[in-house]
């Protein structure tokens, strides 16, 4: 059971990364390559607030949410909106990611930093497996955020508008949806969630400028397995990836954990080209 908890904890981290990708994708049809870097910013802001300023958790959360949301909106304004084509956006998003990492390196340096947990450090035995309260919090957050975003996207007018933009941007605009405002809004929301998660992820991952390397690629794999725009399926995929990684490391070896993840990705995409929950569409032939 300990391995399962470990897999779910890692999967929870991937799930919240993929959630950020999905929110932006649904509302703007953009795959935000800099999202993992925004999450790293949230973790460093948690270190800044909790350690350097010795603030309580609530003000740290408020400030982290505000700053990362603002940074995400800035990315949208500077690196996404002025660039029309997806090829150009790929370059500018990588540029934004590099810029965020560079600023973090200048401000906080290159050494890993400890982010204190506001949960107990004492491990618990749950269902026969050892797990830290911080791990349980990340698993819970991934589930709650997934449920909340899935419900909002299906049941609220804002969510339906976002889905409409995702389905057909031009048609949505013709129907009176303010596509630009929607795009700014989803970037702000994804950034705010990244900021909110900083103090939760930091104690597990440490604040390190190499963090995006741990988050970005597997976050995209979770997105591909679940299906672009499929909130719940992506989270299921992320938890599955976490479990596969942990069991592969446990019984085969760490060298094979990502190999196994990509093998599963290939199998899933061969069987279900649009991912676990991807819709099949008719096309004229």
């Amino acid at each position, binding site marked *: 059971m300990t391995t399962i908890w470990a897999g779910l*904890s890692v999967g929870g981290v991937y799930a919240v990364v993929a959630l950020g990708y999905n929110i932006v994708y649904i509302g703007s049809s953009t795959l935000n390559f800099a999202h993992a870097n925004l999450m790293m910013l949230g973790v460093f802001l948690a270190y800044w607030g909790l350690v350097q300023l010795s603030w309580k958790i609530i003000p740290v959360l408020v400030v982290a949410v505000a700053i990362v949301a603002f940074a995400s909106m800035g990315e949208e304004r500077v690196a996404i909106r002025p660039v029309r084509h997806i090829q150009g956006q790929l370059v500018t998003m990588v540029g934004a990611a590099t810029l965020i990492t560079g600023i973090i390196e200048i401000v906080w340096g290159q050494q890993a930093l400890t982010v204190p947990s506001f949960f107990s450090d004492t491990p618990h035995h749950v269902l026969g497996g050892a797990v830290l309260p911080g791990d349980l919090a990340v698993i819970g957050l991934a589930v709650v955020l997934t449920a909340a975003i899935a419900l909002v996207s299906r049941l609220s007018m804002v969510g339906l508008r976002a889905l409409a933009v995702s389905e057909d941007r031009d048609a949505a605009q013709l129907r009176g949806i303010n596509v630009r405002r929607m795009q700014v809004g989803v970037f702000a929301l994804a950034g705010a969630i990244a900021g909110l998660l900083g103090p939760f992820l930091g104690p597990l991952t440490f604040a390190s400028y190499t963090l995006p390397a741990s988050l970005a690629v597997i976050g995209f794999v979770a997105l591909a397995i679940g299906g672009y725009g499929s909130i719940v399926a992506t989270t299921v995929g992320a938890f599955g990836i976490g479990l596969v990684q942990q069991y592969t490391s446990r019984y085969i070896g760490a060298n094979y954990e990502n190999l196994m993840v990509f093998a599963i990705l290939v199998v899933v995409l061969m069987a279900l080209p649009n991912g676990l929950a991807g819709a099949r569409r008719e096309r004229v032939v």
Partner: protein
Amino acid sequence: MGPWRTRARRIPALLLAVAAVAVGAAACSSSSSGGGTTSASAASAASPFIVVIDTGTTGPYGPNGTDAVQGVEAAANVLNQTQGGILGHKVKVEVLDNQGNPSTAAMLLEQRLASGPKPDAIVPGSISTEGVVEVPIAAAAKILSIGTPNASSLDDPAKYPYNFLMSPAANLPQESLMAYFKAHHYTKVGMIYSTDAYGASVGQAAIAAAKQAGITLTTATYEDTDLNMMAELQQLQAAHPQALYVQGFGAPPGIILQDQYALGWKLPTVGDLTTASTPVIWQDSAKPQEKGLLLQELQVAVHSGSQTTALTNYIKAMEKFGPITSPLPTTSYEYDAVMLVAQAAKQADSIATPAMANALEHLKQPASPLWVTLSRYVFTPTEHAPAADLSNWVVVPVSPLTNGQYDGP
């Protein structure tokens, strides 16, 4: 017409450049002080002993490069203040910031050698990617090079007779640690190490050293991007080792100790040299997950009641750059590099490159060495990486750092 016109315009510029290089080369040869011809007695006392360090003080490895430069500058300051320099020549340090880019490193060094007085020694960067481009340039210019860049290709006295490596062979700290385990009657040890190039080399050396010591070493590896190490630790736990050996730098050692604590797996745990140089380890030394943690470290990074004059001088010199917040070996190898050159020059009574290289190959241990990291450096004509005594490495409990040193046992 267009390309020809461009080419025609370039010809005078090319001629000028060639002329400038020729003049520069002539100037260099006339002002050379350490190129193999100048003896101490013949040299003007006013001419400095020039040490060039070409490393990235900015860029991705900026902190490494800055540490290396501070080590070299500290040695120069100590030599100038306590010894009057090297054989009467004041030591002058020139820093080339290559921003961590090997191509820039090569270009800067070539440019420096083409202008100004010839350096007497070169510190070829602080990491291997710098060393592999800088050492051949120094060798072609017949200048002594000595530093921490560690690559097997650089330890080739036939090809690079004037290049010396500061880092001892990777097997020595591992042999020292296995001797520690053996002395504590641990016959079954678990080891977790990174799959990156350095981690793999430490892992291989540890496996060989354990075999030699008759210790059963069970190993598990991790990726540096791993966010959780529970599975790897459980894999090791299944082998029921008596002690755990942790290798890693940055976040991974912190994650390993956190997960070991979550597992409730209590056993003697020793972090390797890189773990000991990881800030999260000494910063979190009071945390429950580090309770009982031991670290392998060089003796120089462990506080002892008595301190040699050389160590006192070194620490004082380093304090001039600000509070010492990293373990001393992050700067002490570069410090020692300059001190070894000074000792070699003294032994040879010359600052000529062949004479200093020969002296390094047959270095006599002085009563009070100027260096601080290893008690003794042993180079030979066929081995330019130092042999060192295993007692240079010790195992100590984790503690906060004071002046770059752990508290000690």
